[in-house]
């Protein structure tokens, strides 16, 4: 019973070649540079924070960030005040658009946190629209737990990471 019948087991299906093209998307996109700008979006140059017409003023003086409670996307009164200031600035500066980034803390699964970040970004977007900002000037993106602002693993950091950030972009490009 000398059976050496050959059976073909495999034909080249899973040979893999490596791909390396580090310059394809410039300086990292998707907030990789820490500036918070989404890849493919022209983040506006910030300008002088003392100039009320500058995005830097928007970011620092009005405040580009609002925070959320655990697993929530409800805007607190404090957040609504910040967002009212954001809306007013945007209404006065129609040359700018914005991408609203939603974020979650690390205490959650990856997919759920993307969906949760989307809820938060959308809550901000709807508030700004209600304050008169044109929907055409706003986009949302969720980073889930991929881009924490603070990196410790306790509530002091988690509270900073549960946020939505309004990133001012150059108008007409979104």
């Amino acid at each position: 019973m000398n059976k050496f019948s050959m059976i073909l087991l495999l034909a080249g299906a899973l040979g893999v070649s490596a791909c390396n093209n580090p310059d394809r998307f410039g300086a990292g996109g998707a907030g990789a540079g820490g500036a918070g700008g989404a890849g493919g979006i022209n983040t506006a140059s910030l300008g002088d924070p003392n100039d009320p017409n500058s995005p830097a003023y928007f970011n620092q003086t009005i405040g580009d960030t609002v925070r959320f409670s655990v697993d929530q996307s409800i805007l607190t009164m404090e957040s609504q005040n910040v967002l009212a200031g954001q809306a007013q600035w945007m209404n006065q500066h129609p040359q700018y658009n914005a991408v609203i980034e939603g974020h979650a803390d690390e205490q959650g699964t990856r997919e759920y946190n993307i969906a949760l970040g989307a809820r938060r970004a959308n809550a901000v977007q709807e508030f700004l629209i209600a304050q008169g900002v044109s929907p055409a000037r706003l986009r949302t993106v969720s980073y889930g737990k991929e881009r924490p602002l603070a990196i410790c693993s306790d509530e002091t950091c988690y509270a900073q990471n549960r946020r939505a950030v309004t990133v001012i972009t150059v108008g007409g490009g979104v």
Partner: protein
Amino acid sequence: MSRILRNLCLALAVLAPVAMPAMAQNGPLRIVIEEGVIEPLPFAAPAFIAENPSAAEFADQITRVVAADLAGTGLFREIPQSAHIARVTNFDAPVSYADWKAINAQALVTGSVALGSDGRLNVKFRLFDVFSGQPMGDGLQFGGGSDNWRRIAHKVADQVYSRITGESGYFDSRVVFVSESGPKDQRLKRLAIMDYDGASVQYLTDSSAIVLAPRFSPDGSRVLYTSYETGFPRIKMLDIASVTSRPLADLSGNMTFAPRFSPDGGTVIYSVEQGGNTDIYALALGSNQPVRLTNAPSIETAPSFSPDGSRIVFESDRSGTQQLYVMPVGGGEPTRISFGEGRYGTPVWSPRGDLIAFTKQNAGRFHIGVMRADGSEERLLTASFLDEGPTWAPNGRVIMFTRESAGAGGSAQLYSVDISGRNLRAVPTEGAASDPAWSPLLP
């Protein structure tokens, strides 16, 4: 920088049996996996015989990989070669069972390796039940290019595992995952693929955009994943052989994520975000017409098909917290299946159909667990600061997942655990790694 693909061909043949001493003395050698093995089965794997001098290195390495595969399951324990009494010098010589019995080896794996002048390896092996004093199954012979020596070794180990456990093996398989580097607030992520044991890593994307949660097609030739390349999370499909990827479909304006193939590979189910709300859709490949499967103001995500393709398990927070639900493949009223304390996410149906693996969050800890498809018999297999994202070995007996450590210096690593909760192990990777997805058993 693409590389020329090698066509590889592993061939298998059955060997003539060794002259067989007669009677069995005990019951057949068998491990029943479901019971959870407490005392691993001792086996001996004397160095495979090199049939020619150029095969010596391969013979040694292949023996090591076979032994490592078996011992790595936690079901087997290798008796070191230094303890062996018998010396195997000829693959076809009769087995001196008494010598193996004396060191309490219950299973014996012998092999030989020849390297042809054409660069092809020919690897033979036999498995013996020492206490019964007879071979377990026919001897087998594998042929393949010498650069595939690891795969040949995994195939030998799969045969041994399969004969002793009665289950199909999982060693000749690959894992696609996210390779991580950089600080926690600016993590760089790129897709990579490796053998199930961490060997032979190759990168599939660069790290210029965040990539998440790759998933194999049922034939192992393609990978779905989520990329932030456009600035927004969008599903892409990558062909592994050519290392080229394209967007799954043109669904402009929405975030799409959490994709998974249907068992026949013809459909993709995934999450779509619109106006802050996330629901589950299905898209037949080749069409641009997504079909909406859920329609609720809550978050519906992380869908996974049952292996027969008839049902979909997913997570939803419609009850107020993340829980697991099962619905018919075309959508329709879902049935909640998770009822324990805490939150449940990332459900994945076992390839055997019997169990659903999930991530559970409770009292500040994360767990990987399994439950039956109706939600009964929940068992937690792990516990840590952050365990998530289970993926099944092709035989449905082992789960791999991401474990992330706490703090500013925290990083992710891949771990595996068997379905009895035993044999928790770190999967060796060069750097930090997350989001593993296990391939089917390779052909």
